[in-house]
């Protein structure tokens, strides 16, 4: 497979069925940067003057996001929250620190760190046990709180997370399956600083799939933690993602149409709608052959039968 963009047709490193394209390393990096730039612009996320705080977990998405924002020339610092989940937290912390020292520092960007154990006296798992709450919900509350607090206290203009197209499509699927209307409103890639004390929150990777971001990290030699948080095993989100990926494999572009279609519907106000009955009265009239309602002069049934009869005539 060769790059579909290069005039010299260099060997491609990734095929993108949903875009009918394949890219070499350089063109793929450009493609990813363009997708992020388009999301930033379309959802009015931030400007080059803004100070951005990126929540970085050590995984592919958030490290790639930090990398891309720095490459595009934005002023982006990062916040790592050490959750105290044994070897997983130690390893992810090392990856983040390594990236901050070897790459981000040369852009003048710095890393902030919050250690849960230092403030709460215990790691996430112990806290969850004490509180009789599921670990991931305890974790979610703590992360959201710390992201917002750091952004507000350190006076960042906006707080960015590495949520990607798969995260958002899977969350949307979950919310739709259970008709979680309140949550549907919060699925926009830009959430405003609605009240004093709330930081503006953005998801600049919302146009890129998980696979594309992982590929970007490999191509650009970003050293991220491949292992998963041990608590993620068997989660509903992973199930939704697997289901969506099966659909995506059968019909490329499904995830994108699902999530972007939802965003389109959300941003374009619904037109004053006529009722189904009103629409039928306006568009339907009796078929000139059989009299049943149709939008055409002759209904599709009568057309089909007429055609079948002609075709069935024995040839003379």
């Amino acid at each position, binding site marked *: *497979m060769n790059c579909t963009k290069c005039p010299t047709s260099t060997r*491609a*490193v*990734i*095929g993108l069925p949903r875009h009918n394209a*394949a890219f070499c390393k350089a063109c793929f990096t450009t493609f990813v940067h363009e997708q992020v730039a388009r999301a930033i612009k379309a959802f009015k996320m931030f400007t080059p003057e803004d100070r951005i705080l990126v929540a970085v977990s050590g*995984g*592919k*998405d958030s490290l790639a996001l930090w990398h891309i924002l720095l490459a595009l020339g934005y002023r982006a610092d990062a916040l790592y929250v050490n959750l105290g989940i044994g070897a997983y937290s130690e390893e992810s912390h090392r990856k983040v620190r390594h990236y901050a020292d070897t790459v981000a520092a040369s852009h003048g960007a710095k890393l902030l760190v919050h250690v849960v154990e230092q403030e709460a006296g215990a790691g996430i798992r112990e806290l969850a046990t004490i509180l009789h709450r599921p670990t*991931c*919900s305890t*974790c*979610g509350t703590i992360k959201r709180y710390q992201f917002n607090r750091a952004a507000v206290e350190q006076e960042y203009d906006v707080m960015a997370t590495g949520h990607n197209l*798969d*995260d958002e499509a*899977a969350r949307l699927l979950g919310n739709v399956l259970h008709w979680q209307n309140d949550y549907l409103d919060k699925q926009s890639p830009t959430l405003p600083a609605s009240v004093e004390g709330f930081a503006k929150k953005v998801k600049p990777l919302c146009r890129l*799939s*998980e*696979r594309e*971001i*992982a*590929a970007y990290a*490999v*191509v650009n030699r970003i050293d991220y933690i*491949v*292992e*998963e*948080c041990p*608590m*993620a095993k068997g*989660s509903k*989100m*992973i199930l939704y*993602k*697997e289901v969506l*990926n*099966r659909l*995506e*494999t059968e019909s490329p572009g499904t995830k994108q149409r699902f999530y972007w279609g939802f965003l389109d519907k959300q941003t374009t106000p619904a037109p004053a709608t006529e009722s189904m009955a009103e629409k039928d009265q306006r568009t339907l009239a009796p078929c000139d052959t059989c009299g049943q309602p149709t939008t055409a002069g002759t209904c599709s049934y009568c057309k089909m039968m007429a055609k079948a009869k002609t075709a069935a005539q024995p040839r003379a």
Partner: protein
Amino acid sequence: MLVQLSHPHRQVEIKGPKRTKELLRELNLVMEAHLVIRGDELVTEDEILADADQIEIRPVISGGT
């Protein structure tokens, strides 16, 4: 070829030459959820992998909440 897999971390030996696509199918893995890396370079689904190649199949799905 020696193929390295994650979740859990393990290695399997698969006979080459073989296209990336066929390797994934044989292991029952979907392309959309994995990257295939030869040495330290990404390869596309139509690439032919040789018996002597060192391959890593890296999952890309993540997420808890």
